[in-house]
């Protein structure tokens, strides 16, 4: 047994640690808010965009739209693949093969965003078409994100109690009826919540990578900020911050929605 006083100090130290960590995390958020407040709506100004000179133009609208479109395209492509792969893993595979696949999925699902960025730069298509660029980005994000999507969705099915499956089979359901008429409907809220969380993550990931997509160009937010600082361009910096701020709001909203859905689903079960 540890002495009580020592345990108390330890737990207080822990609280302090988390408070400091929380404060550090707040700094970028606050700085975003402050920039938007100080510079006003200018930071969120959409107009007068020029592809030739994105840093100094008001590229926010394209940045924002580009990110959203990429995220939605990614989810459109990834969702069905994710669902069927997760079901395959949880309902058909077992034993050694499952363990083997899961090891790989786990390894690949924590790929850092930096690597994602490098892969994107590597294969970036040489084109003038905005849509080709968007599709390329969506395809790359799908390929890179898929292991994580599958793993999180798989976890939803894996944590179901077997009694739900048995209940369906025991009244004469075939395996596919059990999956599509009972298992899936019973988990639609959880699956939706997982998808929303992943969507938020894709947006976040794209956001750090893309400032704007048009005419086949994409500019990374970090590069844009760096460029703005080097050139002492107050406007460009403001817009980069404004852009980040909007996306942050969007991500928070999506995550909040996902939480609401999870909570109500949990209350139901």
């Amino acid at each position, binding site marked *: 047994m540890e002495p009580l006083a020592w345990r108390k100090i330890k737990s207080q130290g822990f609280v302090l640690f988390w408070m400091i960590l929380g404060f550090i995390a707040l700094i970028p958020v606050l700085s975003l808010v402050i920039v938007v407040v100080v510079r006003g709506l200018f930071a969120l100004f959409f107009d007068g965009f020029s592809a030739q000179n994105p840093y100094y133009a008001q590229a926010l609208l394209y940045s924002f739209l580009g990110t959203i479109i990429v995220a939605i395209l990614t989810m459109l492509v990834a969702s069905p693949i994710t669902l069927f792969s997760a079901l395959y893993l949880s309902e058909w595979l*077992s*034993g050694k093969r499952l363990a083997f696949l899961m090891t790989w999925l786990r390894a690949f699902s924590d790929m850092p965003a930096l690597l994602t960025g490098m892969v994107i730069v590597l294969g970036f298509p040489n084109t003038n078409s905005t849509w080709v660029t968007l599709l390329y980005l969506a395809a790359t994000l799908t390929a890179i994100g898929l292991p994580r999507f599958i793993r999180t969705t798989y976890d939803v099915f894996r944590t179901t*109690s077997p*009694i*739900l*499956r*048995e*209940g*369906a*089979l*025991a*009244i*004469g*359901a*075939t395996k596919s*009826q059990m999956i599509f*008429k*009972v298992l899936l*409907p*019973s988990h*639609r809220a959880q699956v939706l919540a997982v998808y929303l969380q992943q969507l938020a993550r894709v947006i976040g990931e794209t956001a750090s990578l893309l400032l704007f997509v048009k005419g086949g160009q994409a500019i990374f937010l970090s590069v844009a900020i760096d460029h703005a600082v080097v050139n002492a361009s107050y406007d460009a910096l403001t817009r980069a911050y404004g852009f980040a701020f909007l996306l942050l709001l969007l991500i928070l909203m999506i995550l909040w929605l996902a939480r609401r859905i999870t909570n109500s689903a949990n209350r*139901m*079960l």
Partner: protein
Amino acid sequence: MGESVTAFEISAYYGQKKVLHNISLTIIPGEITAIIGPPGCGKSTFVRCLNRLIEATPDAKVTGQVKLGGIDITTLPKEEVRRKIGMVFASPNPFPTMTVFDNVAAGLYLQGIKQRSEVADHVERTLRMASLWDEVKDRLQRPALALSLIEQQQLCIARALAVSPDVLLLDEPASMLSPMGTLQIEEIIDDLKMHYTILIVTHNLQQAARVADKTAFFLNGELIEFSDTMDLFTTPKDTRTEDYVTGRFG
């Protein structure tokens, strides 16, 4: 009226591990048969062999034969076997996103029976058999999870009965319920025995003594003794049975 179920030299394995050893047993209509035995002795595994639910466990293997009214169940589609030999589980497991009505009707829907009047008839009849109709007749469109635990278990009984089984297997159906709920389930089962062949697994010896006409005692995957409940409890032939029913172990 139910059909008899005959198990002939059933052995079961999970992977390499043998958990049932040559069990032969016949359960007949109009009676309640109980299976008793300590935890892990293979009671659930045995009843899952009877409706081929064991086949849903990836590494399970079964040898031997089960006959339903003289027909080898492996010659029938397993979905049909499971409809004819219904099952109720220890924890009530209504389908969480369905209404009370749809839960009972689920088995019919799965067979493609959609005609509203026919389905509604079935639902009412089986809810009555599960003594639940009066409680839920005004709540049929409410979510099943809004029911109390005992009502949920009654709902599961109705759900099993809705696909017109001959046999009803109950694997510790009252183990999650209060003493009152337990008695209620026992009454329902007693009413059902006129129409179905009933097998109940229980770890509650008093329950077996109260409801069962015949009782089987399992130990370590073996059938030690099978006889009239009265005889098994008062004049057991095997000393291991005697030790168990007198509470010396288990």
